[in-house]
């Protein structure tokens, strides 16, 4: 008897937790990931059936063998993910993270090569320079949106191209930065490189700590400050927040400025990373291609449902399966593009995973209800029989 009384309470608690929004977005993301992985597995079976199972498990778990690299590659996409996710909160789609990333990368490169500063300060200045670069490239679409009502999606796509062409030209025109015989940039001076965390055979460096700290700060700003509240309110209902006296023009510009800063930092973190090979560093090749890290940032933000804490995990996850993918392609001869396909499929499903999730939940609930109903009908019948 007592057991029966306790269990409904416990059940309520469980359903209370499972019905909360955070959990449902989490399960929705898991559902999307599962569907994406299944799709990837099918592609692998079609491509090379004999290796598919080993390939698939390596893709899933291979990243654990290179944890340092997982965190190293997660850093830039964590930053671009924060950039996209932050703008999403305000209802803006910052597809221009690529351009802001490239700008930040160039500003950091420039500060690294052209300014001579003491060790210990130099890399910090370079990071800040990268941030400024990204801010400028985010600011212009923000201004266009706020003052001229230009759709920020189009503007920031145009600025991806303009930024990429500009940076490639600036790099090629600068004899200190560019080595034309190798069609890439020279090695950065050691003082401009971010201190390594000392994991053997990995480039993982201090920037991952900065990135995670920034994500936490962003979470606090979004959820505990007036500014964050205004942003989210504008994202929910633009007209209502305007009616409530929030300055949406100022907020639009500020949002794009901050989003640009994050993406610019991502570019700086990517180029200023130390290298495991002594005397070398990361380089940039001006080959007129839009930076992929910006678009991966969109994937990261969507998978993390624009929540800064969620974005930390989704960046690490995406970096993890990307590492797994590189191992798969080197060991089993699969093409690394499989991972891009998997990520794209995950994003596609995550766009309506919430709905799918609630539909499945409703179906389960209906079935359970039907069962309970038929059960109660049976017991009623029994009682009736008894009564009769």
């Amino acid at each position, binding site marked *: 008897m007592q057991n029966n009384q306790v269990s409904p309470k416990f059940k309520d608690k469980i359903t209370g937790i499972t019905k909360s929004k955070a959990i449902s977005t989490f399960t929705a993301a898991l559902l999307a990931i599962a569907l994406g992985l299944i799709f990837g597995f099918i592609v692998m079976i079609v491509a090379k059936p004999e290796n598919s199972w080993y390939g698939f498990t390596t893709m899933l778990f291979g990243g654990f063998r290179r944890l340092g690299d997982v965190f190293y590659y997660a850093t830039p996409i964590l930053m671009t993910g924060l950039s996209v996710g932050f703008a999403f909160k305000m209802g803006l789609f910052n597809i221009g993270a690529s351009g802001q990333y490239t700008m930040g990368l160039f500003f950091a490169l420039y500060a690294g090569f052209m300014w001579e500063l003491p060790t210990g300060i130099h890399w910090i200045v370079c990071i800040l320079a990268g941030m400024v670069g990204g801010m400028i490239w985010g600011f212009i679409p923000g201004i266009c949106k706020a003052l001229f009502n230009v759709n920020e*999606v*189009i*503007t920031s*796509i145009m600025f991806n*191209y303009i930024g990429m*062409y500009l940076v*490639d030209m600036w790099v090629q025109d600068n004899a200190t930065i560019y080595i034309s015989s190798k069609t890439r940039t020279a090695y950065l001076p050691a003082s401009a490189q971010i201190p390594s965390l000392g994991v053997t055979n990995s480039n993982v460096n201090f920037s991952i700590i900065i990135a995670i700290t920034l994500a936490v700060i962003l979470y606090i700003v979004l959820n505990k400050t007036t500014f964050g509240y205004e942003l989210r309110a504008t994202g929910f209902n633009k007209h209502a927040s305007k009616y409530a006296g929030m300055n949406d023009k100022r907020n639009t510009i500020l949002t794009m400025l901050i989003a640009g800063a994050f993406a610019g930092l991502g570019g700086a973190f990517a180029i200023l990373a130390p290298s495991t090979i002594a005397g070398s560093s990361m380089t940039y090749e001006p080959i007129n291609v839009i930076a992929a890290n910006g678009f991966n940032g969109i994937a990261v933000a969507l998978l993390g449902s624009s929540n800064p804490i969620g974005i930390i995990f989704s960046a690490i996850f995406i970096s993890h399966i990307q590492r797994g993918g590189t191992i798969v392609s080197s060991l089993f001869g699969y093409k690394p593009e499989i991972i891009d396909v998997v990520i*794209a499929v995950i*994003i*596609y499903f995550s766009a309506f995973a919430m709905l799918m999730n609630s539909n499945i939940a409703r179906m389960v609930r209906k079935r359970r209800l039907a069962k309970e109903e038929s059960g109660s009908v049976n017991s009623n019948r029994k009682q009736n029989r008894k009564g009769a």
Partner: protein
Amino acid sequence: MDTIYYLVQNMLPIAVPLLLVALGGMFSERSGVINIGLEGIMLFGAFFGCLTVYGIQRSGMGPQTILIIAMLISAVAGILFSMLLSFAAVNMKADQTITGTALNMLVPAIVLLFSKMKFNSDGITTDVNFYIQQVPGLSSIPVLGDLFFKKTYVTVYIGFLFLAIATIIFYKTKFGLRLRACGEHPQAADSVGINVYVMRHAGVALSGFLGGIGGFFYSVGVMDGNTNGHTGVAGFGFLALAVMIFGQWKPLKIMFAALFFAFLRILAYSVALIPFLHNLNLNQTYFKMLPYVATMIVLIFTSQKSRAPKAEGIPYDKGRR
């Protein structure tokens, strides 16, 4: 005069993909679905078009016949692929921008994956010459012959034919009227018996049709019949969206916008031929940026009064007022 002929002859094959894809975007958005996945649809169409060309290039058919067959295949591919968008946007009520972005990310990966597995390269290379030196008869008309009927592609004529058909469908048929109603006020449309879901599926399918063909025409007119997963369609899908906004979601204005952008682009690539621009001695990169910068400037001046379809981007929910 020769320079002008050269510019026009080269501008049209570039303008046509922009025109078709922007028209596709117009059909989709006027039905109420934002189609940011046009870039992906284009590359998907281009990929299947080129795959078809690759498959039948040794069969002895004339180049123009091959082009027509490949065009039909790319149209079907575009429609099928766009159904991924309309399924998510209409049936699942998903965020249309996110879905479109996912589709844009998916296609280059698929193209690269397939080409690397099958051809061990980044794309498909075909060797059919679609180029038309001169159209017999018409090319001897004094000025017009030089402008429109020499050194061109058949895609140009097909493109303008589609423009005419699209304009008629859009303004002169019941279907067009209903489609536009669904993008403006779907509830009102539903109340008079129009099936909003069907109309939106149709709008997206039309954008897939035109987007797929536009993508294939891009690889014919700009890439010499090849396609490549890395460079894709070089942002033409996004440029087409800008063309569509600049053209105010109206067919004829879209045509002028497409011609404008194509002109700027061909100008950028033929600086050496034009003494005035050549003497400026600017870095070529500035000219390459010109179409994008011009898009920005044009949008700044036109967006204030631009009026997008009222219900675009909002999933239709019968229960809502």
